[in-house]
C-alpha cells in the first residue's frame, strides 16, 4: 500500500528531474521525444497487464493505437460545413460537439470537437476490442499470437488502402487538443514543457490504476488464471470474462495514447499501425521482465527515447527484433510466464521425442 505510493512518488520525481535536467543542460528539444516516449509507454504498460498478468499475448496492439489515432484524426479534420444546414449537423454544432476553426488556407471549416472525437475513439476501441477479443481469446499461445497478428494486419491494410485515412500519407493538420484554457496537446514549442508533463501525467495515472488493479481481487484472479486456469475456474473465476476485460482495458490504454500522440504530432501515418510497432511493444514488455510493470515502464522510456532520437539509425526495427530474440533465448525468468514460450518448449520436447 505505502510502497505503491512511494514508487509513484519516485516516478513523479524522476519525471520532474528529467525535465529540469533538460532545462539545465539546454537540451529542451529532447522533451519532444520524451513526450512521444511517454505516449508509447502508456500503450506498453497496458500491454504489460495483458501479457504479464493475464498471460495473453497481443501482436495487434498497434492496431488499437491506430484506431484511437485515426478516429480522432479523421473526426477532427473532416470538414462538415457543407452540411451546416442539415438539422442534425446544426444541432451538433450548437451543442459544441462540432466546432468551427480556420483551416490551413484561411477558410472556415466545421469539424468534430477533439473531446467528442476522443470519446468516439474510445467507444470504437471498446467495441472493436470486444468483437475481436471474444473469439480470439479462446485461443492460446502461438494461436493467439497469430490471430492478434491477423487483426493488426487487417487494421494496417485498411488504413493503407483507404483514401479517407490518407492511404500511405496518413492524415496531417490534426488540430491541437484543448485540455485547459491555455493548455493544449500540440507540438508547438511554446507548449513543449507542459506537453511533456501532460504525457507523463497520463503515464503516472495509468500506472497507478494498473498497480491498484494488480493488487486487487481482479489482479489476484488474473494471476490465478495465469497459474492454473482450471483451478481458477473451480474457485469461481470466469477466466474468459477476465481475459476479455483485460484485453479491452489494454486496448483502451493504446487508444488513449494513439489519440493524444496524434494531436501532439499533428497527424498520424500508417506506420503507427504496422506490425513492427506491435512487435516492438511486445519486445519491450518482454525485456522489461514480463509481468513487471515498473521494469516495463523503465525499459519503455529508455528504448523509445533512444529509438525516437535515432540512436539505432537504420537498424531501428532490427534492434527491437533482436531484443525479442535475445529475451526469448536468454532470459527465461522474465519470459517463462509467457504461454508461448512454454508451448514452444513443449513443442521442441515433443519433436525430440518424436525424433528419438
Amino acid at each position, binding site marked *: 500500500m505505502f510502497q505503491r505510493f512511494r514508487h509513484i512518488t519516485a516516478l513523479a520525481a524522476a519525471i520532474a528531474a528529467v525535465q529540469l535536467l533538460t532545462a539545465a543542460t539546454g537540451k529542451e528539444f529532447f522533451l519532444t521525444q520524451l513526450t512521444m516516449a511517454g505516449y508509447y509507454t502508456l500503450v506498453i504498460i497496458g500491454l504489460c497487464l495483458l501479457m504479464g498478468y493475464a498471460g495473453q499475448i497481443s501482436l495487434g496492439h498497434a492496431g488499437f493505437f491506430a484506431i484511437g489515432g485515426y478516429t480522432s484524426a479523421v473526426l477532427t479534420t473532416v470538414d462538415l460545413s457543407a452540411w451546416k444546414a442539415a438539422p442534425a449537423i446544426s444541432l451538433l454544432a450548437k451543442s459544441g460537439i462540432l466546432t468551427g476553426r480556420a483551416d490551413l488556407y484561411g477558410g472556415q471549416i466545421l469539424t468534430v470537437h477533439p473531446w467528442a472525437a476522443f470519446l468516439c475513439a474510445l467507444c470504437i476501441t471498446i467495441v472493436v476490442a470486444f468483437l475481436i477479443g471474444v473469439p480470439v481469446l479462446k485461443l492460446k499461445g502461438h494461436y493467439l499470437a497469430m490471430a492478434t497478428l491477423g487483426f493488426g494486419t487487417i487494421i494496417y491494410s485498411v488504413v493503407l488502402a483507404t483514401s479517407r485515412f490518407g492511404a500511405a500519407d496518413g492524415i496531417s493538420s490534426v488540430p491541437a487538443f484543448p485540455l485547459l484554457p491555455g493548455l493544449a496537446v500540440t507540438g508547438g514549442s511554446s507548449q513543449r514543457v507542459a506537453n511533456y508533463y501532460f504525457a507523463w501525467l497520463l503515464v503516472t495515472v495509468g500506472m497507478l490504476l494498473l498497480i*491498484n*488493479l494488480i493488487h486487487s481481487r*481482479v489482479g*489476484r*484472479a488474473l494471476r490465478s488464471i495465469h*497459474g492454473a486456469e482450471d483451478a*481458477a475456474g*473451480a474457485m*469461481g473465476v470466469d477466466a474468459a470474462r477476465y481475459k476479455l476485460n483485460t484485453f479491452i482495458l489494454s486496448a483502451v490504454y493504446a487508444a488513449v495514447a494513439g489519440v493524444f500522440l496524434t494531436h501532439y504530432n499533428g497527424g498520424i501515418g500508417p506506420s503507427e499501425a504496422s506490425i513492427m510497432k506491435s512487435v516492438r511493444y511486445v519486445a519491450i514488455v518482454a525485456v522489461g521482465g514480463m509481468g513487471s510493470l515498473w521494469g516495463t515502464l523503465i525499459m519503455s522510456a529508455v528504448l523509445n527515447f533512444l529509438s525516437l532520437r535515432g540512436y539505432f539509425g537504420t537498424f531501428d526495427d532490427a534492434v527491437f527484433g533482436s531484443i525479442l530474440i535475445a529475451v526469448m533465448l536468454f532470459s527465461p525468468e522474465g519470459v517463462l510466464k509467457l504461454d508461448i514460450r512454454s508451448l514452444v518448449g513443449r513443442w521442441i520436447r515433443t519433436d525430440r521425442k518424436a525424433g528419438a
Partner: protein
Amino acid sequence: MTLLEARSISKRFGGLQAVKDVSFSVAQGSIKAVIGPNGAGKTTLFNLLSGFIAPDSGEVLLRGMPVQDLPSHAIATRGLSRTFQHIRLFGGMSALENVMVGRHVRSRAGFMAGMLNLAWTRAEERDIRDRALDSMEFLGIGQLAHANASSLSYGQQRAVELARSLTSEPEILLLDEPAAGLNMRETADLAVLITKIRDRGITVLIVEHDMSLVMNISDEVVVLSYGEKIADNKPLAVQKDPQVVRVYLGEDEC
C-alpha cells in the same frame, strides 16, 4: 434435504464409457464417499459434478437446480467447491494469495473498483485476507502464509488447496483423494478435520482409497466399478455387499 443430486449421468471418452448411468444424492450436512478401483471413473464423476466436463446425458442438480450445462466457475458461484487429485495451486503466488483466491466467489470488487482502490474495496480486501488467514489457521498452516506455494511439501500443498476451498465457504466440498501422499498420522488428522468441516455446516463428498478413513467418517458410501454404480449405502452395509467384495478382491474369487 438433498443438496446435490446426479440423475443418470453418463460420460464416454472415445470408446471408453468412463461414467455410465450413475445416479445418487448427497444429503445436506452429510459426509458421503465415492470409492472404487483405479480407473473406475471417480475423478470423471467429480469433473461432471463440478462443471469441468459436461455429461453426455443425465442431469446434475444443485439445490434442485440443473447445473450440468453450466461452466465450472458458475457452479462454484452456486456454492460448490472442489480440490484436485493432482494438486492445482497457482504457481508464482504465495500460499496466502492462493487461499485468498478462494474468496473470489464471495467478494465483488471488479476492474473499476480495483483500479480506483476505493474505501470499500480496501475493506473488502482486508476481509478477504483475514478470512484466508483464518482458514489457514484452522488447518494448522498459518505459518506458511507467506511461503511461495510451489515451494511447499506435498502435504502442505494439499492443506493449502483445502484452505483455498474452505475460504469460499462452500455449501458442498468435493475432495478428490485428499489423503493421497499422507502418512498414517496425517491421515488420521485429516479424518478429524473433515468431520470438523462437516460440523461447520459444509456438506462433504469425498473420493478416497484409504478405507479406514472412508469407513470411519462417511455417512454413506457410493461404490463405482467400470463407471457404473454398484452400491450406495451405509459404510457397514457396503463392506458386506457381495458385489463390492467381489470388485475389491478380484473377479477370480467367484
